[in-house]
């Protein structure tokens, strides 16, 4: 039995978690949902021993848990799989599995053969088709996430915390996790499950706890709650969420034309993009979608094929070429590739458009007054939750960081915007704000290429969808043909019969 009583945490002026209390019984899966910045992460970090609460107590099986770090938590039977992957890319699968307790010989050297054999057993037991000697950095994101889940489960925790553990998983892999969680539940473990996908909460959890602004607003049986109710509780207004913006608005003509693109993970990719169109990229995770978006941004440059923007041939050798041509890219790894985390909101919004002279007055000198005006407009217009434009981006929640990143490109006045799974790890309410923003942008004539690992999102937002597999475009679904069944059906079809 996990008993959380009145835990509280402040970071400077931010009251991240206020007086949160809940219980989770053995053999129960408790879902935890809330908007980004609602305090979920802080709660599970306190339970997992990464952060000490300012007040309150946490009891596990009657014992008071006062944890100092992840090592302590593991020893007390608390296992966590957090959003930031905790595997070491430079080491092998086996080394990662046995980082702490590798079998050793009499002279203290690790018994490599024995540990590889044990790792292979573990992987086989969990039906993971991964080589125990593979370097973890070479594995696709989904497999890394599964490996981390397996490592946590193998530690035989009494309480397992899964923080957005499905964010990089495809549907099959989510089903795999669902089976694993059912087994753990049958073995009387306690599981805390954090997700932004309501369908997963319903599949995985017995009960759901909803947080808003650092407070726990509701704990209820999953069966007794609908998605609309949950979203309303998360956001605090009843009308929020649910629908996608209305489709349509693509204009005639060709904005961007790609022909026979060849590059890393890409072969014979051809497509066109109309002005004002939202073109979705679908398929299983890791089939070349990210590579296509990156190639259109010039990293790494394509090996073959041609790209034309508004009828003019483009040569993209580096991002600067793409930016100059009016192409913007919001990367998957927003923290490492998109944002300067320690710089201010204003800096992050405006640095991309500086080179274009948007804010310059004379020989590149920046008009700071104009910058301030633009930034405070954007904060109000995009409903970005930040104290001011001078706040470092690190202090913002994931969804708000994503809005800052979008604004960065909006300020450059792009012709084409490339969006790489921009709603991953973003809460439901903010997701819908981002959908509205993308559609509004398309209506101004910007062409948008939108990759998402969430098929429902593609169905809801995209005018057409390119389904990719093995770096090729397997099928183009026109407006009206786009459905989850069609996308998934094509993606899963083996290469032979296409």
């Amino acid at each position: 039995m996990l008993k959380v009583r009145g835990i509280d945490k402040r970071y400077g002026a931010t009251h991240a978690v206020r007086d949160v209390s809940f219980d989770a019984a053995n053999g129960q899966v408790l879902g935890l949902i809330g908007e980004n910045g609602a305090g979920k992460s802080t709660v599970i970090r306190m339970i997992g021993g990464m952060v000490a609460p300012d007040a309150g107590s946490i009891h596990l099986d009657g014992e008071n848990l006062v944890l100092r770090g992840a090592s302590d938590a593991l020893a007390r039977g608390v296992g966590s799989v957090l959003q930031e992957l905790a595997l070491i890319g430079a080491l092998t699968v086996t080394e990662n599995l046995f980082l702490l307790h590798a079998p050793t010989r009499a002279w203290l050297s690790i018994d490599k053969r024995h540990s590889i054999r044990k790792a292979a057993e573990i992987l086989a037991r969990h039906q993971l088709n991964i080589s125990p000697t593979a370097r973890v950095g070479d594995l696709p994101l989904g497999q890394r996430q599964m490996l981390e889940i397996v490592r946590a489960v193998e530690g035989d925790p009494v309480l397992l915390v899964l923080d957005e553990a499905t964010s990089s998983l495809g549907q099959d892999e989510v089903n795999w996790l669902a089976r694993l969680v059912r087994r753990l539940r049958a073995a009387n473990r306690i599981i805390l499950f954090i997700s932004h996908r309501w369908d997963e909460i319903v599949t995985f959890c017995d009960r759901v706890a909803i947080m808003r602004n650092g407070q726990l607003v509701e704990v209820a049986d999953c069966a007794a709650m609908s998605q609309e109710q949950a979203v309303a509780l998360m956001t605090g207004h009843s009308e929020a969420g649910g629908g996608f913006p209305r489709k349509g608005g693509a204009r005639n003509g060709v904005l961007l034309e790609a022909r026979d693109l060849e590059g890393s993970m890409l072969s014979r990719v051809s497509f066109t993009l109309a002005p004002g169109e939202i073109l979705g990229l679908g398929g299983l995770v890791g089939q070349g979608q990210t590579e296509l978006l990156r190639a259109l941004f010039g990293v790494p440059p394509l090996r073959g094929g041609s790209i034309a923007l508004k009828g003019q041939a483009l040569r993209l050798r580096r991002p600067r070429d793409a930016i100059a041509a009016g192409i913007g890219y919001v990367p998957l790894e927003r923290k490492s590739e998109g944002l300067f985390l320690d710089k201010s909101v204003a800096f992050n919004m405006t640095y991309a458009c500086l080179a274009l002279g948007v804010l310059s007055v004379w020989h590149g000198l920046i008009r700071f007054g104009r910058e301030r005006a633009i930034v405070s407009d954007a904060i109000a217009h995009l409903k970005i939750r930040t104290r001011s434009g001078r706040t470092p981006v690190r202090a913002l929640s994931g969804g708000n960081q994503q809005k800052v990143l979008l604004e960065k490109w909006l300020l450059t006045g792009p012709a084409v915007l490339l969006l790489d799974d921009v709603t991953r790890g973003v809460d439901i309410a903010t997701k819908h704000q981002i959908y509205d923003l993308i559609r509004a942008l398309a209506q101004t004539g910007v062409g948008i290429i939108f990759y998402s690992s969430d098929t429902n999102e593609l169905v809801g937002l995209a005018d057409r969808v390119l389904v990719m597999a093995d770096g090729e475009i397997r099928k183009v679904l026109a407006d009206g043909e786009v459905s989850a069944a069609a996308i998934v059906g094509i993606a899963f079809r083996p290469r032979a019969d296409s």
Partner: protein
Amino acid sequence: MMRWLAEARNLEASGSVGIFAFLFAVYIVLKGGHYSLFEAGNLATNVLPLVLVGLAQYFVVLVRGVDLSLGPIMSVSGSLAVVLFPFGVAPAIAAVLAAGLIAGCLNGLLIARFKLSPIVVTLATMSVWDGVALVVLPVPGGEVPAGLQAALTSGSTLLPTSLALLVASGLFGLWVMTTRFGLQLRAIGGDEAAAEASGIIVTELRLRAYGLAGLLAALAGVYFAISTMAGSPIVGDGYILPSIGAVVLGGVPLVGGRGSPIGVVMGALILTIVGSLLYFADLSDFYQSLIDGVILIAAVGSVAVRDWVWKAMGR
């Protein structure tokens, strides 16, 4: 044992082995084609302090650190050893090694526990130990029992002791890297946050890495004093740059997490053999420091060039 040695191959040291083999061949040719076991023993005696202090630096570099005070710790150890030898050899060596361990742990405490910058901390302790060495032994000299020098350098005619110690040092480094401790050092160097989240107590491991480095530096200081029959309060200053040079030449990236102790041994051998080649080039010893610096830049530069080529080739 064989499997355990096979591990060595995974740790990527082939480049530095090749460079050393080439330079060594050049050296033998210049000498007229003969090379005796006695000469090999001399080479081992000369290179051993640098191997030990290079390995010390290697363990620190693995956890994304650097230790500039290892040379001065050597000076203190050698000086302290010759001062203490009259009280008995074994207690003297034990006391010196304990001092080295404590000095290393002090660096580790400041860097790991209090999160201070390794460069600043060890730059400061470098100055401290330099001062301490001069207090312990104001002028070079002191007593080293005569038998000790012979026993630890030339040894028997079949196998010079120094050569055996050189091999033992390499094996020691390899052994450390096959233990859980070694694996966890690589994990910390690879991704510190992930290592912490995996349950490794990073602070403690890092402290132990610096402690081990201090211990090895003390060993280097003692060995240098014994092999030269005298203590010197300034000898370590000449090892600060070469200790990093041996690591870099050994193909160990300074960003941590990777590299082989065998590479470090090779790096130390390369720097030493270059010194011998200077003799044939009719250049004075004064050029050694200049050449060391140039080699170090060339080694770091070659890595940058390689990465640039890979990037240009679209890797």
